[in-house]
């Protein structure tokens, strides 16, 4: 299993993601600096969270024009898998590798909290097919622009093609604030047409040890990686 984690100036979840991947695969992922143009053959590229280029102009916009993006596109066209978490999701959208847009949270506030995700019925995907539909995972979010927005047609298409990976779900008796950012249809993550590119706002790499409050992130990442190995 060959994995890699991209690093842009301002990435700040790269270390956490590297640790999580190493814990699962036993091998330290390759670090891909944003200026790199040559990328070896890989099974999974992860674009981690953070504030690439300070989130200036639009989140992910400046990163999406970095040299490394071309290699990521090549990797995808070879059928490679890509996971974008938080800022990584924003970058995938800005690079037009996923549809829609991520706009400011409805309350216009940065939000860091636990969220509950429900696995949706998706097309065949290494990221979702290892879970039963309806499985829930508790994974935290931490972002300012995670409010997924797209035209009605795009949303319908995503729903129809089974490209919604997970939605925010009500936690216990918390009826009002379970959707942390106002995302349309409570969307927390979406897939590419072939199911091999996933963008998600929650941070699985932050819940891989009991002391962090749970291990659902580990469950999610290791299930995905198992699927990729198969």
């Amino acid at each position, binding site marked *: 299993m060959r994995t890699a984690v991209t690093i842009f100036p301002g990435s700040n979840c790269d270390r956490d993601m590297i640790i999580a991947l190493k814990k699962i695969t036993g091998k330290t992922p390759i670090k891909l600096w944003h200026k790199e143009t040559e990328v070896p053959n890989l099974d999974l590229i992860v674009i981690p969270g953070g504030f690439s280029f300070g989130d200036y*102009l639009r989140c992910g916009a400046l990163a999406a024009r970095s040299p490394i993006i071309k290699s990521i596109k090549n990797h995808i066209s070879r059928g490679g898998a890509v996971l974008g978490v938080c800022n990584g999701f924003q970058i995938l959208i800005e690079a*037009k590798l996923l549809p*829609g847009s991520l*706009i*400011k*949270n*409805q309350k216009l506030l940065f939000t860091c909290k636990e969220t509950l995700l429900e696995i949706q019925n998706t097309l065949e995907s290494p990221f979702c097919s290892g879970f039963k539909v309806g499985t829930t995972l508790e994974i935290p979010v931490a972002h300012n622009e995670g409010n997924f927005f797209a*035209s009605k047609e795009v949303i319908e298409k995503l729903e129809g093609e089974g490209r919604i990976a997970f939605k925010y779900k009500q936690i216990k008796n918390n009826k009002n604030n379970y959707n942390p950012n106002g995302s349309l249809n409570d969307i927390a993550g979406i897939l590419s047409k072939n199911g091999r590119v996933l963008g998600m706002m929650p941070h699985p790499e932050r819940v891989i040890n009991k002391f962090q409050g749970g291990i659902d992130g580990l469950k999610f990442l290791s299930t995905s990686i198992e699927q990729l190995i198969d």
Partner: protein
Amino acid sequence: MKVIINISLKNGVLDPEGQAIENSLLNLGFKDFKNIRIGKQIILNIDKINKSEVLEQANNMCETILANTVIENYKIDILEDK
């Protein structure tokens, strides 16, 4: 030449910031206003000899990076040097 680029959200795109400002203005007692839209303005100088070249470069910049054309429109104004 001085180039002024105004970038605004396309119609129908949710604008939480605009909404929040509208609410705040109402709460502060402002009335008689409507249709508030918030946009970005990018001002720069582009040194080319003729206006059409400047426009071309500005256009190019908008398409490649400055605007997200999925949700944003842009408008370019050029002030020719006197």
